[in-house]
């Protein structure tokens, strides 16, 4: 016991140092799981911290949870993808201004043998109709994320209320949903960024393939919003502004465009 005390003390001392972005100069970014799970933030943020000395702490939740979190003043900046909700957020006075940051697209993935026969369809809602008609397993994020909001919009377009044992509501992140979908031979909707990052890591173990893509409804726009300091006095205004400006700068936008997997761009820069 007597020897344990100094050992614990040394451990506590060691662990209290060496924080990433632990100094007073850091911001909290609430973001979607896709920007995080795809590895984009891991690619961009070390550069930002090196150039500005500001640490970035990312809380990766779905778009719905991130918006809620920011409304309650628990974040400085938002990076999410559900434009209508983002605009409502700014209109409600919670955000300073919304900027387009980047885009990619959603794709419908599923078992490579494609039992519902959706491969090559041009319309996402037609694909959903076929999946529902066959009652082929479909994995839903069901977490109020941007991807989940898009998925529900497509079901609505298809005129279907997805219900039943074939429709699996997971309530998990994009990465986890892809993994579960692969295990259950399910169809699911994913953003291309997370898909490519996942495919690189999992390889054949993923057991999924892109089946439907290219429908304009599958366009996926990401926005960046600084949380309004007038509503949330704790917001680190200067640091948050620096971050937003840095993300929208020509140089960073080019950097976003260089983040590739299998030679494919995961997120296309779209700041104006």
């Amino acid at each position, binding site marked *: *016991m007597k020897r344990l005390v100094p050992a*614990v003390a040394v*451990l*506590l001392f*060691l*662990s*209290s140092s*060496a*924080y*990433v*972005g*632990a100094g007073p100069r850091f911001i*909290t970014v609430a973001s979607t799981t896709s920007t995080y*799970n795809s590895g984009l933030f*891991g690619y961009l943020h070390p550069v930002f911290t090196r150039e500005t000395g500001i*640490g970035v*702490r*990312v*809380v*990766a939740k779905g778009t719905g949870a991130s918006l809620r979190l920011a409304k*309650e*003043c*628990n974040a400085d900046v938002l990076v999410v993808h559900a434009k209508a909700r983002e605009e409502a957020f700014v209109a409600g006075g919670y955000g300073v201004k919304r900027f387009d940051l980047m885009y990619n697209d959603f794709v419908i993935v599923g078992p490579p043998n494609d039992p519902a026969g959706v491969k090559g369809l041009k319309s996402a809602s037609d694909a959903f109709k076929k999946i529902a008609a066959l009652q082929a397993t479909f994995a839903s994020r069901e977490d109020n994320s941007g991807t989940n909001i898009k998925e529900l919009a497509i079901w609505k377009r298809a005129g279907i209320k997805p219900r039943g044992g074939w429709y699996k509501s997971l309530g*998990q*992140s994009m*990465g*986890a949903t*892809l*993994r579960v979908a692969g295990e259950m031979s399910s169809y699911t909707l994913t953003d291309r960024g997370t898909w490519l990052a*996942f495919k690189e*890591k*999992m390889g054949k*173990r*993923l057991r999924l393939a892109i089946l439907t893509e290219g429908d304009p409804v599958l366009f996926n726009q990401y926005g960046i919003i600084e949380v309004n300091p007038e509503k*949330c006095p*704790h917001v680190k205004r200067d640091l948050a502004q620096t971050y937003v400006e840095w993300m929208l700068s020509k140089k960073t936008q080019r950097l976003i465009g260089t983040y590739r997997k299998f030679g494919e761009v995961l997120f296309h820069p779209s700041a104006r």
Partner: protein
Amino acid sequence: METIVQGLKQGLLLILSADPGLFFIVALSLKVSLSAVAIAAFLGIPFGAFLAFSRFPARGLLVTILDTLMGLPPVVVGLVVYLVLSRSGPLGDLGLLFTDRAMIIAQTVLSFPIVCALSLAAVQGADPRAFREALSLGATRYQAVWVVVREARLGIAGAVLAGLGRVVAEVGAVMMVGGNIAGATRVMTTAIVLETSMGNFEQAIGLGMVLIFIALGLNLALSMIKGGRAHRAEGGV
């Protein structure tokens, strides 16, 4: 099967290579859990001893509540601590949400009932003759209580280790109030959840192995304490 073998191999390599990322996560986990249990012990042992020696009307109810709280689901504790520490919550001005301190608070709430209730049981289980003997030898009541608490110290140490075992393996509460932020609030359990969801099974298995080693160490310590006690009871040392 290939994934499991690969994972185990790479996980072991990760541990042996003393990967700084892994080290940070393990160190933070221990820091959070040890701090939480230290606070829980500081508050819980005296309170448990107090309950063991006192008789008042609501005592039975208090003990029942304490026993119930021992099984408190971590996610519920996480939710409550989240709401309290959120910027829009009553303690929002402190800015503690998504920090390691928030995780320490949540784990303190989780481990306090265990440390307290098991200390109470340990003190109650101590030889009652010690108390009477101390009094007859001229000790004051407080001194006599102290004698019994000392007598129960092995059971109390077991209570503290049980509290540590509960929080070090807990994921729900720290995920909610810490936010699983890399380099700031990412601990072993939340990292395992994340790495698994991202498909990095090797990293997840490596962390899982460290967690199991820690649990093993805790249980070894616990059984050593128990063994020591049995030895004493048999008239040893």
